[in-house]
């Protein structure tokens, strides 16, 4: 296990290196650096002034050198200042992060609450009417773009029924309901299928037949064995989806005016505020990679079968 952890951590280095290099290069390729942002709309500016500013910001140095100074700055939490507000990029990003993490967490909880019971229900009623209905619903959910779900929910819950405010007024639980629900509907549609498949696979194993033959009651088999052993796979699949969730929040946050990093990113893109976009991409990618790593390690630590398999290899 220790060997495996170290192996995975070493694997992480080139990936992180690649992520940062790619994000840095992308903003350079954009062709619009700080200089054009500073002087672009001020008409003719003497070349000497531009050159002096370039030297001051270190933009005349070779690409690789710029990258490494940017990288070391980033690790110290110094990612430059926003072109628009002039505030420190890293501080702005960190200030908005909790709202996004809260939304992610709530959506995952909602997804678990929706998809696991329904998935188990569908698997137990395999090929019966309940199963067909649930599969149909999951199919519908999979074909709905999340911004459309968001607008439908707005139309239904806020405008028709008047239960909730149309846009959030601050980071409160009440205004979190609709964004959470929107994200959870899409996720649940996907995970219900996977929960169903996992439980179904477990139900078809020989030990279940054996237990049935020995007269163990169905619900005992289901709760004591089948669900217990499926749960690990299900939770892992769910944890691996955090990445796509983090990206998906951007649209939802800007629709519901949820004040998180996703909305910040969309706003910065409209304003062409490159340092902020860069911070968003780099940190989201790092969070994503780390979450996946932790999930993978936990999965290995919790499942004795895999753990043994690894130590045999090592």
């Amino acid at each position, binding site marked *: 296990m220790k060997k495996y952890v170290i192996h995975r951590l070493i694997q992480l280095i*080139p*990936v992180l290196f*690649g*992520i940062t290099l*790619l*994000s840095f290069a*992308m*903003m350079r*390729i*954009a062709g619009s650096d700080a200089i054009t942002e500073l002087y672009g709309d001020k008409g003719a500016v003497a070349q000497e002034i531009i050159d002096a500013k370039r030297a001051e910001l270190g933009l005349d140095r070779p690409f690789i050198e710029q990258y490494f100074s940017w990288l070391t700055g980033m690790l110290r939490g110094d990612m430059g200042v926003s072109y628009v507000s002039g505030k420190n990029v890293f501080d702005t990003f960190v200030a908005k992060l909790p709202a996004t993490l809260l939304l992610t967490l709530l959506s995952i909880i909602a997804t678990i609450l929706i998809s696991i019971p329904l998935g188990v229900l569908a698997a137990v009623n395999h*090929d019966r009417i309940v*199963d067909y209905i649930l*599969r149909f619903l999951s*199919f*519908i959910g*999979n*074909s*709905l*773009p*999340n*911004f*459309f779900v968001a*607008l*439908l929910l*707005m*139309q239904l819950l806020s*405008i028709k029924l008047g239960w909730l405010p*149309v846009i959030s007024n601050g980071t409160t639980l009440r205004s979190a309901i609709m964004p959470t629900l929107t994200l959870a509907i899409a996720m649940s549609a996907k995970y219900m299928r996977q929960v169903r*498949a996992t439980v*179904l696979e477990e139900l078809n194993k020989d030990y279940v037949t054996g237990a049935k033959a020995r007269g163990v009651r169905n619900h005992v088999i289901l709760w004591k064995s089948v669900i217990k052993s499926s749960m690990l796979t299900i939770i892992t699949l769910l944890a691996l989806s955090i*990445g*796509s969730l*983090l*990206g*998906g929040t*951007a*649209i939802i946050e*800007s*629709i519901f005016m949820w004040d998180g990093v996703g909305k910040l*990113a*969309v706003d*910065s*893109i*409209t304003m*062409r505020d*490159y340092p902020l*976009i*860069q911070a*968003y*991409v780099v940190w*989201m*990618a790092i969070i*994503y*990679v780390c979450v996946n790593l932790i999930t993978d390690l936990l999965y290995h630590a919790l499942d004795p079968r895999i753990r043994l398999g690894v130590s045999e290899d090592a």
Partner: protein
Amino acid sequence: MPEVTVRKQKIRKNSVRTRLIIFGVLALLLLLASIFAEYLTPYDPYIQDLNNAKAAPTPAHLFGTDRYGRDMLSRVIVGSRASIYSTLLLVAIITAIGTCVGVFCGWHGKFIDVVLMRISDMFLAFPGLVFALAVAGVLGGGLQNAIIALAAISWPKYARIARSQTLAQKETPYLKAAKLSGSSTVKIIFKHILPNIIGPILVTSMLDIGTMMMELAGLSFLGLGAKPPTAEWGSMMSDTRSLLTTAPWVTLSPGFAIFISVMVFNLLGDTIRDYADPRSRGGR
């Protein structure tokens, strides 16, 4: 009871074929509608009629009219050009690029293989939409740039599939025989490898159409795709968001159009997968 099983299999096979025909025809109709969109609209989608603005759906205007009195049905039909056609273009691009890179890596191996696969790892390490957002943001809006952004994050998946399939083919005796008998690399790749690996790749791309359509519409919704006045479903919905209270049909009808198209292509993708791989039948 062997007869029963055989019969059941036959029925299943027939039902898959029926589904394939139904959904295939539906998808083809959508595609044709998107190509010939201009000829199918009951009204001119860009002509304004302010006297009849924000009119609720009536038999004359099935989806109502928007804030300038433009017929929504016509706008939705014309919007299919940008939405369906560009999604299919996008999927074709990533399939082609991914397959080329994958086959090349699998066939050539060595240093280039390692480098290209590390690069694809890097792309896979990004949470998809985050990276697409950034690329679209850097390139600036526009449908073309949105396609580039989504292509940039989606090709590695296809490269991986094509590479592993090529590697598997490379080990088969017939390919070694072809090589020994002096066939050129080009001939081996196009005549032997590609026909054998294209199946799984095409199934994957069919399954991806729905997702890609939603992501492209999502980027447009954020203002990073098609720009007004071009009718595109995602951007139409985002432009008319403020009408949700007074004229919900304007905002929601493009949404239903996306939903229906995504559903048709998802159904087609699922059916093709079932057709190609009998093991996945029965809703597993």
